[in-house]
């Protein structure tokens, strides 16, 4: 039940308000439970994400540590920096989630911390600016061609079945 409670918490504060009250009467009111589960199912439907092309959600560790996933907007940064600055000079690998970024590395001046240090850009105490993702969103680069394929090519290209 704890997991369900977490999901509800993260999805809607409004549900949370009457959730505790609600749980007390559950065994007596089956219909109430069915209604709740129905609502839960709706809240858990995948949201039609239409995020900006190339926005990266980074969630290797954030969810597990109780933070919202970090969202990195490529469009915003490429207006200010060429790819070379991050992907050659700062050593960001060309793979979403592939850099194993942690806060310890960031405050050490690595990755996002090379700039988000109060000198080149605003400083790291603005947690909510980076940790702005919907909880539970997996690591991914958004709007990619692979995501938009009707059928994933990587399945059909495997070794021929015998």
């Amino acid at each position: 039940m704890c997991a369900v409670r977490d999901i509800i918490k993260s999805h809607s504060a409004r549900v949370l308000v009457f959730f505790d009250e609600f749980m007390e009467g559950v065994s007596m009111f089956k219909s109430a439970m069915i209604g709740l589960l129905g609502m839960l199912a709706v809240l858990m439907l995948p949201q039609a994400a239409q995020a900006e092309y190339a926005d990266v959600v980074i969630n290797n560790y954030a969810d597990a540590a109780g933070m919202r996933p970090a969202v990195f907007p490529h469009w915003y940064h490429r207006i200010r920096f060429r790819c070379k600055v991050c992907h050659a000079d700062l050593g960001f690998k060309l793979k979403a989630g592939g850099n194993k970024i942690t806060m310890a590395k960031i405050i050490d001046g690595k990755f996002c911390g090379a700039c988000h240090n109060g000198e080149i850009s605003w400083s790291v105490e603005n947690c909510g600016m980076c940790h702005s993702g919907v909880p539970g969103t997996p690591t991914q680069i958004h709007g990619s061609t692979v995501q938009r394929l009707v059928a994933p090519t990587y399945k059909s290209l495997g070794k021929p079945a015998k």
Partner: protein
Amino acid sequence: MKTKYFFLSVLAMTTLLVVGVNAQAAQAPLKEVKSAKGKVSGANIFNRLLKKDEQRNAAPPEDGIHDSANDGTHVLQPPLIAYDGLPTSEFGNYVDWVKSLDDGLLKPRYDLSDPTVEPLVMDLDIVREVKASMPDVVFPHKPHTQWLHCSNCHPKIFIPQRNANVISMSAILLGQKCGVCHGKVSFPITTKSCTKCHSKPKPADWKPPKSEASLKNPWR
């Protein structure tokens, strides 16, 4: 007490119904075809698999990946404000990044802290002949070296030697070769972007090679 729970469950089920109906409406944008004889089954609607962008360049609170319950989300800049005045394109961010740079409408830094460092630009086109009917591919080093460093591609993605690399469309769609960037951050692979890469027309007398398989000799 009892009425309260009953009320709550009715509320929850109504939510389910309303959202469910909305979701169905979103999936089937065409109106039902009604006739005296009956109606077309939901299985036979248009756009079973076609996904269209409902909204281009959505602002962070509405884009589905940012949490609108987070205060920071509302401080983030909506892309359309930043794109104002930039040349547009039909795919990706719907911005023509190469032209924006060439026209001097953007001045992204090539160095972390020194805004005066100029990029090391190399103007070398590589033509890759395409066996199929598509126009040949021209790989221009110029726009790439304006944004990237040689080491972003050489030697990990491409051996720096003409035609030393095997490149195919399936590899690109899988996110390899050109697809490491195109379809991720640089312009994506869609019907409207094919000719960006496939830009050198075939000679007038070019004919597609004929397949050798035939019914008489299916194994060739």
